[in-house]
């Protein structure tokens, strides 16, 4: 209701107002809201107001201490404030009323409601100045007034002047000062004065601002010292030269200590122009007032300090780096700090009370609320870890805690909570755990132990691998260096210590190989490698290293060396033996042949008499010569095997050489009744070769044919074409089965055992022929049919390509261009299946049953791919894989792991190229093998990611797949890299705004050369569906980054490399115009 609508005196009966105006005490008519409608002149005189000052103003405002919540409330003010229709009368009430000039006076008041049909309602207040009633009444009134003033909620700066005013008025003083006692400074300081500053009369006290008094100084100082009410006056103040003494210029001073018990909180000083009689009543009442003031001050100080603590706490909570909040005793949220609102993007009304549940992840909210409520109910500290949604819609992980705050009596007053962002920490932890797990696996698989030796602490930290190598009991405790050194072989110890000392001095690397003697007396070889470096966050240096068991390899090495020595020794012995045999056997044979020939000559001289034994002598000579030829054959083979057979190249005419051989074998043919046909066309010309060896070959082939074609035909045909001469020996003998032909050229073998009995011979001839043909860069081939005879063809180049001598032809042939795959699997059935499958695919397959053989074969054949079973006895697939990857020669052969169980992560971390689970999906096997067989370098990949760690991980992943990698943090840098180097694949974080993925994608789309580069978008899971849809058309795939989605990313990268290898992707830079 505005003032213009307030009922005025016009509404009242004029006669009533006239009669009110005639009264000698104050009368005020108030409406039903307690607002003044009319005050009579006596009332106006008492209050010092003009009528218009008061009209429409609440009468309660004129009453001192009118706070309705206060215990010291005035009855009248309360009544007026809360006036209802049935308001009761208040026949007598002592109140303090304000004057217009700010002073107050005690008044005896009454209130009378008007219960007629008067539209104004309300009632009449009467008031009389009670200040001039008796002294006792005065003091009582004063105490009531003081009580009311002090009982409110007002602050001291408001209360103290009013208090001083009331006291001065009540005790007839002219001015008042409140001295606050600073216990810290031990001084009394002026805190409030009355009259108010703007009062012209207040000049004398106004100048007191900033004044202080010591203990016992002036009247207030003495009141402080004595704790009693002190007065001084009746004459000029003694010691009034003290400029700080406000009593200067006053006739009388009264100091009332404000105290609580014995504790003085301040002093009220009242000053008057005339002495006030300080009788016992006054003293008592002043003392009581002092105590009231003391109580008030203490309460205010406690409140103040509480308020300050609260403010400090809020400021502290506000400034914590975490999200912070406060809840009441029931757990309902009352306050969140700025960071909370900044992070969540919420408004207080969204989250106060229980609204905070809206920013919780749906999967977690029920659990969180349950544990939170449980903690509230139990009054226990609450702790939880959960994701909170940020204003960008992405969730981050927080560690949240809430602690109860207790009041003075130990009851829970409220809860204070914090949310600490641990997303980065969690990620780092996950990475660290994964890395540590990988490392542990790798160490375990590779059977490598790790250790560190803090030199200044004289302790070695060692893992299981280390302990088991030294045969020490498993355990966590540190080892003493002595324990370690005591296990080193005494002969190796000085070198170990010297090397470690050296590394320690230079803080460098060390590489040790030494023997370990276990407590059981077993000697093992070990390799320890590592580095000595300064310890982080600690003094001194320590050695960090790995250690592994070399015993097996050492043993192998020793065995190998021994075997090599033995073989060399045996070979030397054989050479010696051959040299000896050549002498020892030939000498007696020389004698046999020589005497036989001598006797033959002599028998001839005897004429007919000698004929009887001439034949026998010829047989002795023939046998001796046969024996000689056998010995020569063995020697020749030995020479070939020892690599000592040399090719003696010369240029000679072919025909004479052939004829010479024919002459030699003619007697043999005649003896076997074999018809010998020679087919030598003219113009055979000359050749450059080893004539002795060709002669021997032809002799072997012809004498062989003569033996088998007994009574039949033997034909020698010689043909020359552009670069070869072919010698063809055909017989009409018994022929050979294909099986016999296959074994024909093997040493010491004949077509079958019965042949030996029937035809004699050692089977050396053909083996030598074959060996010589090889040495002369020619071939010897056989064509035969059982019962139809045999044809041997010796083809030799007219001039050998390799001029000069040649070493022996190696026994085993290096694999030809045909691609080979090595299968390592202990299950014979599996080996068979894999071999057949891969063979059908045109691959040549070598299958072995265990890891060690597999490694050996891998080194021999360098296969283009290895299929490796995980579960194998002795050396399992992981160990084989680790060994393959550790061998420089083998590391780049793609290894495909095959296992019953899924352990893809481990496989990839150990370097496997792919992973298949049993039972084998043959289609997949084919595609996997095909992919890894023709592993072309996939190309250049560009990684665009703002987080350095993630970038590095991606780069490693790509490099593991054979990609070259270029890394950039944002779109701008990516574009300049693209212009410079191009790219065959782009991985870009599409979520981090600082990367600017969408700009990059736009530029890629606009540039013809770049349009077809495959792009993989990476998210951390915070992409909204809209963005996702937008991306779908622009990138090949959106993949989440994380441990568990690694496979997806890897699979996609591999698909891209396969596409590239098979040319399906047009992603190459500079490819012909892509529009």
């Amino acid at each position, binding site marked *: 209701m505005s003032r213009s609508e307030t009922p005025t005196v016009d509404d009242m009966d004029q006669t009533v107002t006239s009669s009110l105006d005639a009264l000698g005490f104050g009368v005020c008519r108030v409406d039903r809201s307690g607002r003044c409608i009319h005050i009579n002149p006596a009332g106006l005189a008492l209050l010092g107001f003009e009528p218009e000052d008061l009209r429409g103003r609440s009468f309660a405002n004129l009453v001192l201490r009118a706070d309705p919540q206060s215990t010291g409330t005035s009855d009248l003010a309360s009544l007026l404030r809360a006036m209802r229709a049935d308001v009761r009368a208040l026949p007598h009430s002592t109140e303090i009323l304000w004057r217009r000039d700010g002073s107050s006076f005690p008044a005896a008041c009454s209130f009378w409601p008007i219960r007629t049909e008067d539209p104004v309602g309300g009632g009449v207040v009467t008031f009389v100045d009670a200040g001039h009633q008796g002294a006792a009444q005065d003091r009582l009134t004063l105490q009531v007034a003081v009580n009311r003033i002090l009982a409110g909620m007002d602050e001291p700066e408001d209360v103290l002047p009013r208090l001083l005013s009331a006291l001065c008025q009540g005790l007839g003083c002219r001015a008042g000062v409140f001295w606050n006692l600073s216990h810290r400074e031990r001084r009394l300081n002026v805190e409030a004065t009355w009259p108010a500053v703007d009062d012209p009369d207040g000049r004398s006290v106004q100048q007191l601002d900033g004044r202080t008094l010591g203990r016992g100084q002036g009247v207030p100082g003495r009141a402080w010292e004595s704790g009693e009410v002190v007065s001084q006056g009746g004459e000029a103040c003694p010691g009034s030269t003290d400029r700080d003494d406000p009593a200067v210029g006053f006739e009388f001073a009264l100091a009332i200590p404000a105290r609580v018990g014995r504790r003085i909180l301040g002093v009220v000083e009242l000053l008057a122009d005339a002495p006030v009689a300080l009788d016992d009543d006054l003293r008592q009442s002043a003392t009581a007032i002092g105590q009231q003031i003391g109580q008030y001050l203490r309460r205010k100080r406690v409140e103040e300090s509480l308020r300050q603590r609260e403010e400090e706490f809020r400021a502290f909570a506000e400034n914590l780096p975490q999200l912070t909040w406060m809840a009441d005793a029931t757990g309902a949220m009352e306050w969140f700090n700025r960071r909370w609102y900044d992070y969540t993007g919420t408004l207080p009304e969204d989250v106060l009370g229980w609204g905070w549940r809206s920013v919780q992840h749906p999967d977690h909210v029920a659990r969180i609320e349950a544990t939170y409520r449980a903690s509230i109910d139990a009054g226990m500290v609450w702790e939880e870890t959960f994701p909170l949604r940020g204003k960008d819609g992405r969730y981050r992980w927080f560690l949240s805690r809430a602690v109860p705050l207790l009041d003075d009596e130990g009851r829970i007053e409220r809860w204070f909570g914090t949310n600490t962002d641990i997303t980065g920490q969690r990620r780092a932890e996950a990475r660290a755990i994964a890395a540590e797990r990988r490392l542990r696996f790798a160490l375990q698989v590779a059977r490598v132990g790790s250790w560190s030796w803090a030199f200044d602490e004289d302790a070695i930290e060692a893992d299981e691998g280390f302990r088991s190598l030294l045969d020490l009991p498993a355990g966590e405790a540190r080892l003493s260096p002595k324990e370690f050194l005591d296990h080193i072989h005494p002969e190796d110890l000085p070198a170990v210590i010297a090397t470690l000392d050296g590394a320690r001095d230079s803080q460098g690397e060390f590489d040790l190989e030494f023997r370990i003697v276990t407590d059981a007396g077993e000697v093992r070889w070990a390799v320890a490698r590592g580095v000595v470096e300064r310890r982080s966050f600690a003094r001194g240096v320590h050695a960090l290293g790995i250690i592994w068991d070399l015993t097996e390899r050492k043993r192998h090495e020793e065995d190998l060396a021994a075997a090599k020595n033995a073989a060399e020794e045996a070979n030397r012995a054989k050479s010696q033996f051959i*040299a000896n045999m*050549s*002498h020892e056997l*030939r*000498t*007696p*044979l*020389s*004698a046999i*042949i*020589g*005497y036989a*020939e*001598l006797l033959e*000559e002599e028998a001839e001289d005897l004429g007919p008499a000698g004929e009887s034994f001439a034949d026998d002598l010829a047989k002795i000579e023939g046998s001796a010569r046969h024996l*000689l030829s056998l010995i020569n054959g063995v*020697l020749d083979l030995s*020479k070939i095997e020892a690599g*000592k*057979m*040399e090719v003696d190249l010369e240029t000679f005419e072919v025909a004479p050489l052939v004829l010479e051989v024919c002459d030699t074998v003619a007697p043999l043919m005649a003896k076997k009744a074999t018809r010998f046909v020679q087919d030598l066309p003219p113009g055979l010309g000359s050749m450059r070769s080893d004539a002795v060896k060709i002669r021997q070959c032809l002799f072997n082939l012809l004498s062989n044919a003569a033996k088998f074609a007994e009574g039949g035909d033997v034909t020698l045909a010689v043909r020359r074409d552009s670069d070869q001469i072919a010698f063809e020996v055909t017989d009409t003998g018994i022929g050979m089965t294909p099986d016999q032909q296959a074994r024909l050229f093997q040493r010491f073998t004949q077509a079958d055992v019965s042949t030996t009995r029937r035809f004699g011979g050692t089977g050396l001839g053909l083996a030598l022929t074959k060996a010589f043909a090889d040495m002369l860069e020619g071939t010897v081939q056989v064509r035969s049919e059982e019962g139809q005879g045999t044809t041997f063809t010796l083809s030799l180049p007219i001039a050998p390509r390799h001029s000069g001598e040649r070493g022996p032809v190696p026994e085993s042939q290096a694999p030809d261009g045909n691609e080979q795959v090595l299968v390592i699997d202990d299950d014979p059935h599996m080996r068979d299946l894999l071999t057949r499958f891969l063979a059908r695919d045109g691959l040549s397959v070598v299958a072995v049953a265990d890891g060690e053989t597999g490694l050996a074969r891998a080194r021999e054949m360098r296969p283009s791919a290895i299929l490796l079973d995980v579960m194998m006895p002795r050396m399992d697939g992981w160990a084989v894989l680790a060994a393959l990857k550790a061998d420089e020669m083998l590391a780049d052969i793609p290894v495909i792991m095959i296992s019953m169980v899924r352990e893809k992560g481990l496989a990839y971390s150990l370097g496997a190229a792919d992973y298949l689970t049993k039972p084998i999906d043959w289609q997949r096997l084919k595609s996997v093998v095909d992919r890894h067989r023709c592993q072309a370098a996939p190309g250049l990949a560009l990684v665009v990611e703002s987080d350095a760690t993630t970038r590095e991980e991606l780069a490693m992943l790509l490099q593991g797949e054979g990609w070259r990698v270029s890394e950039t943090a944002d779109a701008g840098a990516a574009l300049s890299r693209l212009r410079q180097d191009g790219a065959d694949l782009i991985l870009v974080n599409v979520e981090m705004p600082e990367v600017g993925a969408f700009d990059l994608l736009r530029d890629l789309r606009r540039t013809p050369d770049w349009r077809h580069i495959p792009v993989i978008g990476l998210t951390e899971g915070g992409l909204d569906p809209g963005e996702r849809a937008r991306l779908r058309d622009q990138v090949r795939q959106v993949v989440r980054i994380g441990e568990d989605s690694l496979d997806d990313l890897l699979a996609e990268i591999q698909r891209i490399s396969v596409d590239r290898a098979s040319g399906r992707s047009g992603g190459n830079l500079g490819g012909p115009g892509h529009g």
Partner: protein
Amino acid sequence: MARLLLVEDTEEIWDFLSRRLARRGHEILLAHDGEGGVRMARAERPEVILLDMNLPVMDGWTVARTLKGDPQTSVIPIIALTAHALSGDREKILAAGCDDYHAKPVDFSRLLSQIDAALGTGAAA
């Protein structure tokens, strides 16, 4: 025909070889060790020396070098007789100063032609 010195320690060999050569009309001087061979060569001045390389007291290599180092005997052709058939023997033997080389067992007719060839050389010298 010709005076031949045969230096050979194996009895069977010098026996049949000397008898067969004698049958062909050669005069045979015999020595059974290296030193004897050198002595005999110096004393008797044979036209050709057949020298076994594997001899007691002084081996054939030393004999060959000694004789070839002595101007009085250096012109006498030496045919080495050896059981060694390993590669490089021929070169080693010629390097030791021998004029020709015959691998055992003896191919008598070939040996005769080698002696004839040596006599021709020697005669020319």
